[in-house]
């Protein structure tokens, strides 16, 4: 099995940031959260399904454009930094949202 690693890294980073955007947007906009909730019955299910579909679509789209000549270490560092930032933003957002 040979996957396009560069594209896989791009789609992972973009999917993680999509989750961050959906999460924060959903908390700040009632109408958007309602839209997420009515789409599948629960906002969290919609976020999960959207993320999965987005991940697959972005992977195949980028695979067609980007050639797989990735430096795995650099990309793993990029993905790790993006993920850690996303964790901090989500935690920080909910902390800020909770504290009066």
């Amino acid at each position, binding site marked *: *099995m*040979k*996957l396009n*690693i560069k594209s*896989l*890294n791009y*789609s*992972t980073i973009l*999917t*993680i940031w999509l*989750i961050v955007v959906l*999460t924060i947007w959903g908390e700040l906009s009632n109408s958007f959260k309602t839209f997420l909730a009515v789409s599948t*019955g*629960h906002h*969290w*299910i919609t*976020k*999960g399904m959207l*993320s*999965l579909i987005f*991940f697959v679509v972005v992977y195949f789209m980028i695979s067609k454009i980007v050639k797989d000549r990735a*430096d*795995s*270490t650099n*990309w*793993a*560092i990029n*993905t*790790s930094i993006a*993920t*850690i930032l*996303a*964790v901090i933003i*989500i*935690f920080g957002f*909910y*902390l800020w*949202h*909770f504290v009066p």
Partner: protein
Amino acid sequence: MVNLLVTIHVITGVLAIFAFLLVVVELLDPKEKTAKRVKAFALIGTILIFVSWVVGGYYYVTYYGTDVKPLIKEGASPWIHSVVMETKEHVFLFLPFLSILATGIIFSSNAELLKNHKTKLAVLLLCALIILIGLAITGMGFLISTGARAAGVG
């Protein structure tokens, strides 16, 4: 039913962390069958994360929102839901994609994984990230269970 769902969610989640820990251990001390074992552990870890996602998600959507969340929010520690649970349920969504990425690199690199230092380092870094986030999520799960019991659930 509720206890069974939570138990499966926790056990599959912890075993997934353990599977990626085994990938790290194998890569740090490579032997003859390391390449095969690393593939198996990464694949098992990814499958377990998806099982944990589906089972935990079913519990969260079916029972948590109606039976647990209101009690925690009305209790002495509402932050357990508003900060810890909200963070856990969304950060968890990162794990399936990180595990697909780590497993994808392992399966795509084949024999190169053990020879190419950069590829090995990339897999080690991603596995460490999965393990750290997994452990943080396990800790948050413990806090939520404690908060639920303190709020009178179960």
